[in-house]
């Protein structure tokens, strides 16, 4: 469904992504793990066109082309077919909870207001935020805000939803409510790509785990492969460090 080949990306002299191949199939729940600075976030931001790739190709939603030379239309098509959940929520500060969800439906996807409201309310109900429609982002807790962020993404019925460390900015006691929503989405068959440090989520919910380090995919496979039988020393070392902290 989504195929990335040989993606490269540099900031100045520093190469962040060194030729990444990445494939997402319908219904996949892929977790991206790896040390900070390994390029996970940059990979997500480049696939979703928030950053421009230097090299490599994308095949997604009818767009086939080089990431460095996408037309405005291609970029718009890609953006309209992905959902993105940000680490620090990025809810629209000047909009209510309900408007945060309807905004993209009405403005970008040209769905009539009444219908958009119905879709938005259903999405908010799914994440348990239907009672907060009139609240502004500043009135929500981190966990609530992130659940609205997820509702905003799923309301658009994207082909893939990307999560960029969705629980990293949350207080520990709020992490659970967000993970629960994500787990539920996965069970309903949503296609998801998740950067996370929540190893339980990676192990129990994902069907595929991708370990990245230094701008490269070091190892990829089923959760059992990666967590129980990591082949590459770099992976073993990372997991030993992470799991010893739990």
């Amino acid at each position, binding site marked *: 469904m989504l195929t990335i080949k040989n993606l490269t990306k540099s900031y100045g002299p520093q190469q962040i992504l060194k030729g990444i191949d990445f494939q997402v199939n319908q219904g996949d729940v892929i977790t991206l793990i790896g040390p900070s600075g390994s390029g996970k976030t940059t990979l997500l931001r480049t696939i979703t066109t928030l950053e421009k790739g230097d090299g490599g190709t994308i095949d997604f939603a009818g767009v086939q082309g080089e990431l460095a030379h996408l037309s405005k239309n291609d970029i718009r098509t890609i953006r309209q077919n992905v959902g993105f959940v940000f680490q620090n929520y990025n*809810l629209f500060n000047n909009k209510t909870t309900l408007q945060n969800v309807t905004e993209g439906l009405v403005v970008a996807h040209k769905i009539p207001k009444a219908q958009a409201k119905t879709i938005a309310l259903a999405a908010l109900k799914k994440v348990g935020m239907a009672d907060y429609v009139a609240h502004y982002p500043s009135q929500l807790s981190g966990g609530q805000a992130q659940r609205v962020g997820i509702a905003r993404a799923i309301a658009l019925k994207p082909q893939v939803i990307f999560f960029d460390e969705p629980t990293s900015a949350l207080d520990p006691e709020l992490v659970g409510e967000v993970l629960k929503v994500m787990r539920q989405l996965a069970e309903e068959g949503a296609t998801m790509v998740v950067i996370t440090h929540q190893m339980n989520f990676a192990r129990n919910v994902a069907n595929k785990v991708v370990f990245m380090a230094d701008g490269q995919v070091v190892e990829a496979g089923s959760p059992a492969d990666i967590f129980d039988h990591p082949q590459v020393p770099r992976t073993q070392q990372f997991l030993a460090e992470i799991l010893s902290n739990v």
Partner: protein
Amino acid sequence: MTTLALIYKFLIQILPAIQITLIISVASIILGGLLGAALTRAKLSSHWWWRAIANVYISVIRATPAIIMIFVVYYGLPFLIKGWFHVSIEGWNRMYFVVIALTLLFSAPVAEIFRSAYLAVPAGQKEAALMVGMSPWQAFIRITLPQTFVIALPNLANAIINLLKEGALTFTIGVVDMVAKAQMIVANNSGGFAFETYGALALIYWVISLAIDKLVSLVESSFQKKRQAIQP
């Protein structure tokens, strides 16, 4: 007559001219605001020459005292227009010249205010808008601009009050505004009651400034409560 009664009397005489002051101020705020917004765009441009043009313009305008700007526009502009387009604008209503001068003066601080306010809106706001499928223009109009405006409000109020005060120099090229009216009153009284006359004038300016302050803080508080940035 007591001093207070005199101030009241002069107040009533000066007040009709307030419409000149208001027309000039409002026109300059609107035009200067638009010019300021265009300058902000230039300052944020990725092309260095746009940024250079805007920077030079702003530094020149900022360094020009209001009275000099008014004289330069009033005496200089007809000259330039005649030279370039062979059109005479000497017969124009003098208010136009004041509006042009004040528009130029207002645009520079406003450009700086807009720029810093725009940069204060977190980049994630725009990114989130793009990720729900909006075009860059839609993201700007619906998400970034309203937040920029709220952040800019307090400084914008200061700039508007400054403009109002600079507008008090309108009389220097012969437009009969409130200041000119006050001068006439003093002249008619053979230089007498100057304190009471100008006191009445100061009172009017004070009330207008107060009204602007109050209005802005009302608008601000209605936004602020619900629209402040979320702390992750």
